[in-house]
């Protein structure tokens, strides 16, 4: 049985002038009939499934719906249609530094982040030193979070998030964190988790990275699924040609190999 199954998944956002309005404006617009909410489909009819140990590369231009799909898989959003079934624990690294609190210290933020990620206090007490060590922030533990550089912040975020051995790992453009030295370390850590048998979903705009790491490709374009294939090389080549303007999306042959 597959470890993740994404079945006919479509995900909708709402667009229109409804954000940031007050009750007063809402009522006025309702009465005048100028209140519009439009559906916007960020993902349409996505289908794929992954086996244990698979490494899926998700490619597609900006706005293709990659992050949205990953949000649905990690449980932040709900598919509007279709369903997502998965087994085991998901660990998701979406936009690392969001959600930290500048008014708290590094130590407090570490525990808070651990709590957000669903760890227990016991676990955090045991692992705290290891996290700080890995992030190389020993001298900053009592500093306010706002005093860290942005590289340091993402190092901490990465260290907390990569602590557990998830069954499913979701990486949205986060494989390169921090400066050169830390980047090597974090990539090594990631590979350790992946080699440990985690099924991984990777969004990356670096095709070299995708080519060297992934054994399956999901190609999205404006919310449509262009291809889901095991033929990584062909899909990447065609995607490159598409990016260069040498290939029309309708000519993609990797398409034929769906599933």
């Amino acid at each position, binding site marked *: 049985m597959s470890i993740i199954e994404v079945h006919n998944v479509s995900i909708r956002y709402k667009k229109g002038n409804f954000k940031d309005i007050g009750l007063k404006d809402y009522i006025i617009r309702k009465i005048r009939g100028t209140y519009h909410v439009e559906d916007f489909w960020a993902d349409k009819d996505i289908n794929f499934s992954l086996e244990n140990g698979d490494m899926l590369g998700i490619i597609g231009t900006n706005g293709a719906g990659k992050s949205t799909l990953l949000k649905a898989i990690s449980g932040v959003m709900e598919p509007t249609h279709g369903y997502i079934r998965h087994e085991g624990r998901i660990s998701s690294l*979406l936009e690392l530094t969001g959600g930290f609190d500048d008014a708290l210290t590094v130590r407090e933020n570490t525990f808070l982040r651990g709590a957000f990620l669903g760890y227990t206090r016991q676990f955090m007490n045991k692992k705290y030193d290891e996290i700080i060590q890995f992030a190389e922030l020993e001298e900053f533990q009592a500093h306010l979070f706002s005093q860290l550089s942005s590289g340091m912040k993402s190092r901490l975020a990465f260290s907390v998030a990569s602590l557990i051995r998830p069954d499913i790992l979701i990486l949205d453009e986060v494989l390169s964190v921090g400066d050169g030295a830390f980047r090597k370390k974090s990539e090594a850590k990631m590979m350790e988790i992946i080699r440990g048998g985690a099924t991984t979903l990777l969004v990356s705009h670096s095709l070299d990275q995708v080519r060297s790491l992934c054994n399956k490709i999901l190609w999205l374009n404006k919310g449509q699924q262009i291809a889901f294939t095991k033929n990584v090389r062909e899909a990447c080549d065609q995607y490159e040609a598409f990016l260069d303007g040498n290939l029309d999306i309708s000519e993609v042959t990797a398409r034929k190999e769906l599933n």
Partner: protein
Amino acid sequence: MLRQKIQTYTLKIKQNQFLFEELVKRDFKKRYARTALGMLWSILNPLLQLLIMRLVFTHFFADRIPHYTTFLFSGMIVFNYFSESTREGMTTLIDNAPIFSKINVPKYLFLFAKNAQSWINFVLILGIYFVFCALDHVAFTWKFLMLIFPVVCLAVFNIGTGLVLSALYIFFLDIKYFWGIFLQLLQYVSALFYQIDTFSPAIQKLFYLNPIYLYIAYFREIVLYGIIPSLTLHIAILAEALLVFFLGVWIYKKYNWEFLYYI
């Protein structure tokens, strides 16, 4: 199978408890970090308010209402708890939008944590209230123990109201402004500084439509008059608290996935 279920269940509780505690800590630090007087201020503030009310209204009411200080304080303590916890609670969901739009967390915990803070504040002031009762020569009886009932119900009522408001605030930002006005009006019809028995019986009934007045009446009956409130009052308080609480829970359930669209 059952064993596994229990295990995942206890893990869930542990995770949520940890998150709740860390959120309470965070809110606490953020609130008191900036002001030098910190917590002291949140206690001094109602006392100053009490002092001013006492000075201003003494002239009009103190002769007619015995233990007027305690009378004032009883209303204030209830009203301030409601006002503070709902005003603070209203913004919790929006304030934490950067988190729940990235990480899958139970959204109601943000409000629960904020409410825990208001609750601690309330309990501190409640202690001072009893000191004032003693200074005001109020007779302490075993009936004071019954105050646990309105205190618990009010906490539930406040959480419910906070859930409803924090959800509404995501959709309509001007709710904050309306709620401020509403609270001000509510303050005048909650009989904080006057007795309702000067009104005609028909109007007196209207006061009981105000949930906050029910709590104030309960406090005064026990503390000032030493009588056990009627069963009807108990039922009304409990029913309203549960009603608002489940309304809040229902809204959070129904719009759980919608919140994201509005931030």
